[in-house]
Structure formats: structure tokens, C-alpha cells
């Protein structure tokens, strides 16, 4: 019998070797905590009105059942106290009930949320901040039915279609955090939209837009559409409707949060500085979301990465010594009749095939359990196979994989022995947890041992970004890669999959490792990034590329950079060669667009000051120059930067949009789309239909069909649902 006890213990002990899958673990825990948060909020709301009563009832029962040992005196006191308590309850409840605005409809209003009995927890406090404009909108809508502003309209729509939010609920996965964000967003979008409408000339045709809105015209003006969409998402929360949303994996991807760049006044901030960015990950992710019928989350949309996804026909430089030539243009803004766009584009020198240095590549491949899905590891393997095919015989490829532990699968092998490399790739399969940090170290070790002086040394990570074993601390990993950057080894990141995609981490790693970040969702995208643009991905022609634009206050009143929020630099960083910035590969292009308000324009979002009369400093004469562009970059292997300058003036200006070169117009359409997806704070009534029109007229020579695909995406965005 005892023997059986030991045998059982022993058998069970053997099972201890089976540890949980780390990715699954994280997902399960995250999901449960969200459920907990949701559940708690729901029950707290339900019980709020009665918690006071409940507590007293408990007391009362205690009072009515006096236990032995009490004398008459205490009993009498108790009865007295009980009577007072009852009175308090009755009066208190009636006051409390009267206090609520009858028929307000919105059950847990701000007042209720604010009852001192329940101190608002931080999320509730946030809710409180965000609620008033919405509730206020509703009330005023009742009072003056004629006036229609965005939030009211959104609310009324909701009232008219009560089934809508419930239907939307499961899709948006009702993550409280996200919904709360969008709630705050809706408030800001609403106020901004109002501002847009209030300014008589801010939008090209605000009047018709408003009419269309009042009539409930189908294609709504953009700001209205987004406002309505956002607040509709947020509304079920405000209303506290009993929606039990089911768990959805979609939307669990993590993105760094950032606010859209704002308008700057030229008198107070005449200089704008930012680092180049050649990443394209955002566009591919947005495309994937739209193709599955969902609007991407706001933080997934980075305007600069959408712009840089496309190839523009900028003139290319002819020598590697001056690796690029800026193209600048000024033309009217399609979404605002009173502002102009200042377009800056550069294309990097394309290295001729013969001049390509030999490459030492180490592929670092995530084979953890979370990669086990057709759009992850199998796609990555195919992508790598294609990349290996494009390499030349003397390049070497090493293979490091990581899951629960990291290991070298293939020591650096010259591409001459292609069969060996491909066989090693074929043998990979997914399973286990994700010790990404360990893998990164091992891959760098391999790249260092095989370092090619004067060649390309690069670690290429293929992952869904879910690191959860080993160095999981983002900061630690970042600083490790940053340190390794000094050794001359670059780090590129290729993101895969959806549902668990950690964009924030991937971006951080690529930016710190002087590398690029791309998101690969289809084999076609893999071909674009790894084959068609292999040269750009692999061969750096200039590093630490920084832009600085000084605006001329005599010509420009206000400016706003579209995108590059995560790449902004301080003014002094421009001349400081120690400050890191983006690298640019062979044939890469970088596009930046500013929206500028000319000094003479009646529009403008920033009012003049009443007390301080700003002197037009330096009194730069109206030379016809809008701005002065400065570019700093380092050639490969150099530590001192070089400077490139270019004035931007009326010489580069186009009077009307139709005269602007096709490629610039297409870029403008892409920028508009990015902004509208981010909430369209500045795009006024310029919406998807207008973007489609603009892009359709600017497809130009589109050999791979990327531009046609873009137009389709905008069409999809019209019908896509918010998450």
C-alpha cells in the first residue's frame, strides 16, 4: 500500500517537467485581469445606489436582535438610535433620489459616480474627467434641438440605434483601458471638431458640411465621422449598459501611446527638429487590420511610417559622398484652403551591385509557442528563404533560435552552401516560452565572432515581440542593444502576427540598434522588404540623419509636422553628434510634410497675444523664403556629421494642387489618410472619399500595385469597425 503511495508521488513528479507556455500564460493572465477589472466596474456601478442602505440594514438586524446581558437603558438607547437611523435613511434616500435629475437617462451620471460613499478609484476618476462634455452635450441638445454639434449627434444616433452599441461591443473587445482612452479622445476630438466648425474659414466648406450633417447625409464629414465613431464606442461604458463582451484576441497588440503633433507658433518656436525614420511597420499593420474589417487602434498609426512605405520618384544623387539630395515643394493643402503644405523628400544613394559590401547576417528567430501560427513562423521561414536567395556567395548567414532557451542552430555559413542554410531553416518548429533577451545576446555574440570589417554586420530579429523570459525588462534590453551599436553591429526587427504583437518593444529595439523595423503580414510584404528592398534593409549609406527646419516668421505664422511624433529631437540635438538618430539604407527614402499657415492667411489656430507685442525678430525681409532646411548625416564609419542646407521659397511653390508632381500628391493622400485614422483633428471635412479621389489621381506608374492597394485600403476604412 505504501509502495503505491510512493509510486503515485513519483509518477506525478515526472509531470513537473511540463511547464506552462509563457505566451499563453501572459495572455491568460492579462485576459483574466481585464475581466476582473470589467467585472468589478460593473458590480460597483450596480451596487452604488444601495450600499448605504445595505449597511444600515445590517445594523438594524443587529439592533432588533439584542443579545442577552443588555439592560433596559441600552436597549432604549438602541431603539432611539435606530429611530434616528431610520429617519436618516428615509430622508436621506428621498433627498438622494430627488437629487438625481429625473429622466436624464444616463444612469450612473457624474453625480452618482462622485458620491462620497465610494471614493473613486483612479480609472473612475478618469471617467469623471471625460464624462462631463458628453453629458453636457446631451442636456443642451434637449434644450436647443436646432443646434447640432458632434457629440450630441453621436449621442442621438446612439439613442436612435440602441442595438448598435451592443453589436459593436464584442468586437471592440471592450477593454476598459482602451475604451477609457477613446473616451478621453472623443472629448478632445469633439472639442477640436467644434473648433473647426466654429472657425468660419478653417475648413474649405464648413457650411455645406454642417448641412450634410444635419440632414444625416451618408458620407459624413471626417471629423464628425470619427467623433461619432469614437463616442459610440465609448458610450456603452458611460451608459453602464449591461454588455458582457466576450474575449477577443484582436486588439491585444501593444503599441506605444503618443499624441499627435500639435501646431507651433513660428514666433515662439521658429525651429523644428526631428530624426529620420525609414520604418514601414505601421503601414503594414494598419493594412492588416483594415483588411480584416477593423479600424486600427490610434497608436498603431504613425503617419511618417505610412508615408515612407511608398517609393517616391525623388531625384537620386549620383555619388556616395553626398548620399542624398533633398526635394522640396510648397503647395496648397487639400484639406484646408488657408494653409499650405511644405513637402520635404530625400532619396538615399542606391549602391551599385558591384559596390555592395559583403554581409555577415545573423538571423535571430523566435520559435516560442506564440509563433506557432501560419502567419508567424512559417511565414518568417519563407521570408528568410527568399532573403537567402538574394544574397551573394561570400555573405554569411548564422541562425540563432530562442524559445524557452536560446541556441545556435547554424554557425555562420557562407551562402555558397545554400542547401545547408535552407535545411536548417526547414527544421525549425515552434513551441515553448520566449527567452528573447537570451537570444539577443547569443546572436550578437555570433555576429561579433564573425565580424566583417568594412562589411555589413547585422542581427535580424524575426518575432512577434513577445519576450517573456530572461531579460524581459525593455530598458535593459534597449541599453544592451545600444551598447552593442558601438561595435558596428546593426539590429533590424521584423514583426509578425497579430493578437500578441508587441510593437512598442520592437520599435524601441530597432531604434536603439540603428536598424529598421518592418511588419510582415503576407509573403508579398516579405518580398517587398527582404528582396525588392534588400539593399535598403541591409546596406547603410548614412547614419544619424537629422532634419532641422527654421521657419521665416515674415512668411509663416504657424506650422505643424505631420507624424514623426516619436522621433522629435530637441533643437540643440541637431548639432550634437553624440545624439543618435535614424539610419538610412541604400535607396531608402524619407518624406516629411509640414502644414504651414502663411503669415497673410486669415486662418490660424493660435491667437495673437494681447499684452506682449511680438517683434518680428531679425525682421527678415520677405525674401520669398518660407523656411530653411538643414540636414545632418554621417557617412558610414565617420563620427563627425556633415551638413546639407536648402532654402525653401516661392521658387519651389506650386499655385494649385493639380500642378504638383504625381508622387508628391500621392504622398499627401497617404498623409491625409494617416491623420484621419488618428482622429483627423486637423483635416476638417476632408474624409475617405476625398482621399480616394486624391490618391486615384496620383497613382502614376505603379509597377507593384502598392498604390492601388492603398486606395482599396481607404475604401475598406469607410466600412471598417472600430475596435
Amino acid at each position: 500500500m505504501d509502495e503505491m503511495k510512493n509510486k503515485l508521488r513519483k509518477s506525478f513528479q515526472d509531470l513537473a517537467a511540463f511547464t506552462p507556455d509563457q505566451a499563453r500564460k501572459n495572455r491568460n493572465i492579462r485576459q483574466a485581469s481585464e475581466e476582473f477589472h470589467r467585472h468589478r466596474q460593473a458590480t460597483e456601478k450596480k451596487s452604488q445606489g444601495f450600499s448605504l442602505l445595505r449597511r444600515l440594514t445590517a445594523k438594524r438586524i443587529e439592533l432588533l436582535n439584542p443579545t442577552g446581558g443588555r439592560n433596559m437603558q441600552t436597549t432604549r438607547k438602541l431603539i432611539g438610535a435606530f429611530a434616528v437611523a431610520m429617519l436618516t435613511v428615509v430622508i436621506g434616500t428621498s433627498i438622494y433620489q430627488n437629487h438625481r435629475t429625473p429622466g436624464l437617462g444616463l444612469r450612473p451620471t457624474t453625480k452618482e459616480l462622485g458620491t462620497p460613499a465610494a471614493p473613486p478609484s483612479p480609472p473612475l476618476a478618469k471617467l469623471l474627467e471625460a464624462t462631463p462634455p458628453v453629458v453636457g452635450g446631451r442636456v443642451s441638445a434637449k434644450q436647443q434641438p436646432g443646434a447640432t454639434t458632434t457629440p450630441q449627434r453621436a449621442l442621438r444616433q446612439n439613442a436612435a440605434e440602441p442595438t448598435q452599441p451592443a453589436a459593436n461591443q464584442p468586437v471592440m473587445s471592450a477593454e476598459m483601458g482602451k475604451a477609457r482612452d477613446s473616451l478621453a479622445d472623443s472629448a478632445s476630438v469633439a472639442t477640436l471638431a467644434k473648433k473647426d466648425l466654429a472657425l468660419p474659414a478653417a475648413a474649405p466648406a464648413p457650411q455645406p458640411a454642417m448641412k450634410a450633417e444635419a440632414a444625416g447625409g451618408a458620407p459624413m464629414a471626417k471629423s464628425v465621422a470619427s467623433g461619432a465613431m469614437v463616442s459610440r464606442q465609448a458610450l456603452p461604458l458611460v451608459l453602464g449598459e449591461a454588455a458582457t463582451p466576450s474575449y477577443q484576441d484582436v486588439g491585444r497588440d501593444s503599441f506605444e501611446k503618443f499624441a499627435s503633433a500639435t501646431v507651433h507658433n513660428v514666433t515662439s518656436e521658429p525651429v523644428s527638429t526631428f530624426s529620420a525614420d525609414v520604418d514601414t511597420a505601421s503601414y503594414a499593420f494598419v493594412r492588416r487590420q483594415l483588411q480584416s474589417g477593423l479600424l486600427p487602434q490610434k497608436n498603431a498609426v504613425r503617419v511618417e511610417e505610412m508615408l515612407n512605405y511608398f517609393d517616391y520618384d525623388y531625384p537620386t544623387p549620383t555619388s556616395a559622398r553626398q548620399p542624398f539630395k533633398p526635394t522640396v515643394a510648397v503647395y496648397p493643402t487639400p484639406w484646408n484652403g488657408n494653409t499650405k503644405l511644405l513637402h520635404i523628400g530625400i532619396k538615399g544613394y542606391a549602391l551599385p551591385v558591384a559596390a555592395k559590401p559583403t554581409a555577415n547576417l545573423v538571423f535571430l528567430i523566435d520559435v516560442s509557442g506564440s509563433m506557432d501560427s501560419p502567419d508567424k513562423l512559417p511565414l518568417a521561414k519563407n521570408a528568410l528563404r527568399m532573403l537567402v536567395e538574394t544574397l551573394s556567395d561570400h555573405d554569411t548567414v548564422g541562425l540563432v533560435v530562442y524559445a524557452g532557451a536560446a541556441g545556435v542552430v547554424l554557425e555562420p555559413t557562407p551562402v555558397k552552401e545554400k542547401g545547408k542554410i535552407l535545411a536548417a531553416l526547414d527544421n525549425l518548429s515552434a513551441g515553448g516560452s520566449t527567452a528573447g533577451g537570451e537570444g539577443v545576446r547569443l546572436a550578437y555574440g555570433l555576429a561579433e565572432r564573425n565580424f566583417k570589417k568594412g562589411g555589413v554586420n547585422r542581427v535580424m530579429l524575426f518575432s512577434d515581440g513577445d519576450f517573456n523570459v530572461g531579460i524581459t525588462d525593455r530598458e535593459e534590453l534597449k541599453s544592451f542593444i545600444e551598447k552593442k551599436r558601438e561595435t558596428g553591429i546593426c539590429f533590424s526587427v521584423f514583426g509578425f502576427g497579430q493578437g500578441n504583437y508587441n510593437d512598442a518593444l520592437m520599435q524601441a529595439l530597432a531604434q536603439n540598434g540603428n536598424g529598421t523595423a518592418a511588419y510582415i503580414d503576407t509573403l508579398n510584404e516579405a518580398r517587398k522588404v527582404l528582396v525588392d528592398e534588400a539593399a535598403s534593409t541591409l546596406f547603410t549609406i548614412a547614419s544619424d540623419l537629422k532634419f532641422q527646419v527654421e521657419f521665416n516668421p515674415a512668411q509663416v505664422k504657424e506650422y505643424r509636422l505631420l507624424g514623426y511624433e516619436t522621433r522629435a529631437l530637441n533643437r540643440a540635438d541637431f548639432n550634437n553628434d553624440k545624439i543618435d538618430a535614424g539610419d538610412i539604407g541604400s535607396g531608402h527614402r524619407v518624406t516629411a510634410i509640414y502644414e504651414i499657415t502663411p503669415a497673410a492667411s486669415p486662418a490660424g489656430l493660435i491667437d495673437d497675444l494681447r499684452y506682449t507685442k511680438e517683434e518680428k525678430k531679425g525682421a527678415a525681409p520677405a525674401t520669398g523664403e518660407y523656411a530653411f532646411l538643414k540636414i545632418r548625416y554621417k557617412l558610414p564609419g565617420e563620427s563627425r556629421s556633415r551638413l546639407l542646407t536648402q532654402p525653401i521659397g516661392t521658387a519651389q511653390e506650386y499655385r494649385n494642387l493639380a500642378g504638383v508632381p504625381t508622387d508628391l500628391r500621392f504622398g499627401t493622400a497617404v498623409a491625409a489618410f494617416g491623420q484621419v485614422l488618428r482622429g483627423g483633428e486637423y483635416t476638417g471635412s476632408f474624409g475617405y472619399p476625398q482621399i480616394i479621389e486624391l490618391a486615384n489621381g496620383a497613382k502614376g506608374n505603379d509597377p507593384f500595385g502598392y498604390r492601388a492597394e492603398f486606395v482599396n485600403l481607404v475604401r475598406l476604412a469607410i466600412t471598417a469597425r472600430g475596435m
Partner: protein
Amino acid sequence: MKELSDHELFNLIDQGRDEAFDALLSKHYDTLFAFAFKYCRHRHDAEDIVQEALLKISRSFQQFDRKHLFTTWAYRIIINTAKDLFKKQRQEREKHQAYAVESATLGEAPDAPPADKIWGLLDGLPKKLYDAVVLVYGQGLSHAEAAATLGCAETTVSWRLYAARRKLSRQAARIGLVIIVLLLGGSLWMR
């Protein structure tokens, strides 16, 4: 960073700090998974059971009596979830088999323990005895803790364990006997 005790975490959670709930789950996840795995001995099922159980825990955590051990309570939820899953699997056996085929082709890590006749015997035990065996011999709980999970008296647990061991030993012995008889029979027949 010092790990907080369960009670410190409970207090934080009750103060409205949701991240403490996250910490509580992270702290116990591996233990709960280990238990689920021992209970069903199938990786995918164990992951699913833990997922579902954690959701149940999230929804009913407000009702959980803070005086009790969190794990004891969680084990009970896992057992119930596992039983629900088994029932559902019986109904959807075909679907499940299709899934098993798919995961096999993806070349995953093995998700079944080494074949041993003891598991077959264990699966043949009545459910009440089985639960007690996994909790005490598998998860190393004391009889009292197992009793708290199963909602019965401590002596009941001890009795169930005894009954289980007796059954298992007899069955093991019976199998041995059958083999001997077969061998004998075989050798006689050979003659």
C-alpha cells in the same frame, strides 16, 4: 523586489488596485497550471482549463472569503472547470481529434506524459477518489488542505486516499496475475 504575500495582495485589490490582482495571478499561475496538467495530463487542455478557471476566478473574486487560502479555492475551480471540459469533450470528440491531428503536424512539443500503466488505472478510479489523489499525491497538499478544496472532512480525504490506494494496488496485482496466467498458459500450450 520583494514578493507580496497573498494577504497583502488581497488588501491592495480591495483598495481598488487592479494590478495587484494581476500580480496575484502571476504569482500562482505556474502552480495552478501544474495542477491542471496533473489533473488532465494534456498540455492544450491544461492551458484551456487554466484560462477558463482564471476567468471564473476573476468574476467571483469579490465573493472569495479572504480568510481562506487562495490556492485551495483556485484548485476547486480548476477541478470544476476540468470536469466541464471533459463533459464538453465527450460531446465534441470528433472536433477534438481533428485538432490533435493539426497540432501534431505543426511539430509541437510533446504534450503527453510518458506512457505508464498507472495513468490508465488512475483514470479508472471514481472521480472523488481521483480528485483526492491528484491533490494530495500530485500537488502535495495536506489532507486538511485537500479537504478544504473538496469541501469535505479531513477524515474523508484520508479515507478516500486509502480506498484509492487499495483499488490501485489490487488492480496492479490483478494485471500481474493475468500476465502470469497468460505466460503459464502460453508455455503449457507451447508444449
